[in-house]
């Protein structure tokens, strides 16, 4: 039981960044824009969020309040960075995959350049403890208290709230319906007076918002409030894309997929602590490869009848209606 508690407590802070970034990808792709640049957007949010924490950590502010302020900074950074994609893909009708790749390459180089010249290291290191040992009161509930309210981060609760908001916006509002229409059949959407360009800008902007927050939550929950240009976010943006595809571009399925991936990763990194796996004596590298291998296996089975938005990746051209 101790092992299960430990695994769940370890899984949630990893699952939340994956979930948020995959949701961001979903908003972008359901509006019709492929967002390969999520990795770069995440890293932008992670780095600027951490820089913000670095700048104010001496002020003696409450750590959780600091986290929320830094989250806002990260969200703004992600939004601004995502404009690069929106402008190129929507206004300039550029190849979306190439633009995303350029965004993924630009930000680590920029971070290394900035950090080496201004901070004298490869990234930014903070010394704030965002960790929550137990939530007062709630941690006393049997089982549930152990699972969800001990050894955690408030990022978990914020992430779940954002998931709920995303589901409502996506399925229960006019905006959500219009956004989805632009990814399936933009000319039909246009013919009933929906501004396709505007909806796609909105989709990409939301992906920047969620991607930036997800990136900062990665830095909080996975790398202890540190961020550097070499390891970046370790391919989490790409994993999030896989999570999104596995979740068939639907929010709740994406949440389940994110949990599965995070669980696998947590197992991979805690093999020495799990007596059963440790006794197998399998090389640790296999566990580290496991999220990527599982991604491939899952995609192999789900891609045949893929439910990808029909118009994703195709710039909308009014004159071809």
């Amino acid at each position, binding site marked *: 039981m101790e092992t299960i508690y430990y695994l769940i407590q370890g899984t949630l802070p990893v699952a939340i960044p994956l979930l948020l970034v995959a949701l961001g990808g979903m908003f972008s792709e359901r509006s019709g824009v492929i967002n390969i640049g999520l990795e770069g957007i995440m890293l932008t949010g992670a780095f600027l969020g951490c820089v913000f924490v670095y700048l104010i950590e001496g002020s003696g502010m409450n750590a959780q309040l600091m986290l929320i302020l830094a989250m806002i900074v990260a969200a703004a950074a992600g939004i601004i960075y995502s404009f690069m994609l929106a402008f190129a893909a929507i206004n300039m009708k550029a190849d979306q995959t*190439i633009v995303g790749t350029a965004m993924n390459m630009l930000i680590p180089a920029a971070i290394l*350049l900035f950090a080496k010249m201004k901070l004298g290291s490869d990234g930014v290191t903070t010394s704030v403890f965002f960790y929550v040992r137990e939530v007062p009161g709630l941690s006393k509930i049997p089982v549930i208290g152990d699972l969800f309210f001990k050894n955690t981060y408030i990022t978990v609760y914020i992430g779940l709230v954002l998931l709920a908001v995303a589901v409502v916006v996506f399925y229960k509002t006019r905006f959500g319906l219009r956004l989805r229409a632009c990814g399936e059949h933009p000319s039909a959407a246009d013919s009933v007076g929906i501004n396709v360009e505007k909806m796609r800008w909105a989709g990409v902007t939301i992906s920047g918002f969620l991607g930036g927050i997800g990136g900062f939550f990665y830095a909080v929950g996975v790398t202890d409030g540190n961020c550097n240009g070499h390891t970046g976010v370790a391919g989490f943006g790409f994993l999030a894309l896989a999570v999104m595809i596995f979740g068939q571009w639907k929010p709740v399925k994406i949440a389940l997929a994110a949990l599965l991936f995070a669980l696998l990763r947590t197992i991979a990194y805690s093999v020495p602590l799990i007596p059963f796996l440790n006794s197998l004596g399998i*090389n640790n590298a296999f566990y580290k*490869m496991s999220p990527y291998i599982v991604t491939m296996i899952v995609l192999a089975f789900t891609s045949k009848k893929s439910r990808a938005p029909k118009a994703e990746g195709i710039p909308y051209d009014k004159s071809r209606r």
Partner: protein
Amino acid sequence: MNNGKLSKLVRSDGFKAFRAACLAIVIGLIFGFFVMLAASPASAAPGILTIITGGFKKLGDVFYYSIPIMMTGLAVGFAFKMGLFNIGASGQYTMGMFFALYMGLCVPLPAGIEGIRWVFCVLAGAVGGFIWGFIPGIFKALLNVNEVITSIMFNYIGMYLVDMLIMQNALLYESGKTRTKYLPDSAQLPSLGVKNSNLNIAIFFAVIAAVILYIVLNKTTFGYELRATGFNKDAAEYAGMKSKRNIMLTMSLAGMLAGLGGAFAILAPSTIAGSSMTYEPISVIAANGFNGIAVALLGASNPIGIVFSAVFISLIQRGGTMASLYGYKPEIIDVVIAVIIYFSAFSGIISASIAKLFGKMKKSGETKGEDK
């Protein structure tokens, strides 16, 4: 008459691609200059000059460092011609490097051919890359998995796998130095003897590979089918082209090219006697694979264009390392390269509209002249 030839040249696709590439480069360098201005205003001007011209003082190194990115550039560009985005050149490159290392250090050869061990190492590298390109090819052709996601995943899988295989093998790994062991002289590529440079015969192999690719793409049935599939997949299928087979073959050949790049990089001769190139397994994805994307885009996926763009990227990379004289970090070049990629995704559109604008201005100027 002469004028007609010139305007024909100006209107050709090759020239348009060249114009777009130049525009992307200029924007990239201007952006880099602004970044340098922001970082340290006083030395920005000599800094950017060093980046552009510094490489000319070390031409041997410029060509030497252009070899791996030329190969990964060909790997990306070749797949592009078929409409496939091979972002997995890094993994294929790493695999090729590992196979070459393994052949160099672990496989005993008969005494007669021991002297040309490097030939077998190069071939082994090609095999390694081929395998690592074949896998995304299968996934794409038979299971309809997007090759971008597959090749990204296989970049990670390949990197972890190679690092693990190297660290487990005492013949390959020098645990005291946390690096691979030195390759024997017979496994190193023959040097071209340029002073203070590791330039070796692989540069010829890379250029020959580009020429062969050019011929394959433009003069063979396979090349024609490949380009046809790139233009319109459904039409090609309808015309009876075996697109599944072509996808697998293209990805495998692309992987082979990147694998050769990895082999050429690790088998390069060292200027210090008794040593060689080594690899450090530190869980980092090979940057040369991603730089190959920039090379391929700048070269408009044309094999001959890729040769020149690889040399150009290598030139500004060398210049970038020299800019450290003025306090700039070499990462400035990675920033410039990323901006170049970003703008090359739509610089064709911009440069076409600029050209149109100039054309209009010229025309209106002419009509005004007639009025007088």
